[in-house]
């Protein structure tokens, strides 16, 4: 039985695809058989970040509609063992992602994978609902900025009412906050919401803080998940997040100055 993790946010452009690529790569590096699934029908992006855009033959919707088998559609990553990509369909209408179809594909994948990472499209419409419906865990990607925090709170409400776990009265979806594009200098100047501020409002458990970093753009230019740049701050922060996802304790890095007291309280580090 695979563990299903949705990477979601409500708001677009906050770093969901960047996060899906790095978290799935990190899990595979740790030896877990992992697939990352692009739910962004029409706007396929994950294949570019994962550097497999020229190897896409069949996609998620082809599998749902029985035009290809799962094995035909899954792309094996060339750098990291145990890592597979299921690309989104680029052309078809968004309704092609039916609840039953998604369920069928995830069920089949659950038999052979340890982790399924679902990269959600933006918004709170059909595609985003399909991506989060089956989740066991949710990584809520949030930027320290008003509209992103508000949208994250909405997504949390949806996870608590419209997910399969909520509908069937099972244990709730495990929620994790991932604060990305964090600029600690701006936080210290009072120009940006701090980790503590966002935490006060959303109050869910913290998976990590990813600094705003040039390395993310460099990595995406080259089609390489930033977690593979282990010299970079963003890469290191994603590796820490993967460790925490697996239940390991890691002190927060790459944050300086005034928030130390608060971090010590939270992580005892």
């Amino acid at each position, binding site marked *: 039985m695979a563990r299903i993790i949705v990477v979601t946010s409500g708001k677009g452009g906050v770093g969901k695809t960047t996060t899906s690529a790095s978290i799935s790569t990190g899990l595979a590096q740790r030896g877990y058989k992992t697939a990352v699934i692009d739910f962004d029908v029409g706007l396929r992006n994950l294949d570019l970040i994962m550097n497999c855009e020229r190897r896409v033959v069949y996609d998620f919707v082809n599998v749902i509609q029985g035009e290809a088998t799962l094995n035909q559609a899954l792309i094996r990553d060339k750098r990291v063992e145990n890592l597979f990509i299921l690309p989104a369909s680029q052309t078809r209408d968004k309704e092609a992602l039916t609840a039953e179809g998604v369920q069928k594909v995830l069920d089949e994948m659950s038999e052979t994978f340890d982790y399924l990472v679902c990269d959600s499209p933006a918004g709170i419409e059909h595609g985003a609902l399909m991506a989060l419906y089956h989740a066991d865990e949710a990584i809520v990607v949030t930027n320290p900025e008003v509209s992103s925090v*508000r949208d994250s*709170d909405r997504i949390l409400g949806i996870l608590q009412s419209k997910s399969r776990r909520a509908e069937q009265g099972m244990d709730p979806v495990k929620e994790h906050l991932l604060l990305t594009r964090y600029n600690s200098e701006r936080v210290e100047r*009072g120009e940006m*919401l*701090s980790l503590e*501020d966002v935490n*006060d*409002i959303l109050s869910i458990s913290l998976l990590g803080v990813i600094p705003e970093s040039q390395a993310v753009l460099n990595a995406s230019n080259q089609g390489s998940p930033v977690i593979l740049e282990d010299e970079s701050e963003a890469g290191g922060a994603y590796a820490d997040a993967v460790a925490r996802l697996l239940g390991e304790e890691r002190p927060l890095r790459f944050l300086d100055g005034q928030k130390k007291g608060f971090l010590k309280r939270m992580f005892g580090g």
Partner: protein
Amino acid sequence: MSFFDYFKTKKKSSASVAKERLQIIVAHERNTREQPDYLPELQQELLAVIRRYVEIEDDQVQVQLDRNDSCSVLELNVTLPEEVADPQ
């Protein structure tokens, strides 16, 4: 209070303004999210009943359900127009 403290309290950082605004809107949205599905309809029906007697606008009837551990309170807030509220 020193001269500098005066300026500190006077000019809030934009981040703290953002936090305050977020706290208010998020609390409001969570509250409406937790309301039962029948509430809008209940509100419409109450409006219709009250309109048999007084002319009021849509937003003059507010209905809200507050759930506590042991009981729930349905709070009904009707604002009447001034001439009705204050008969000569």
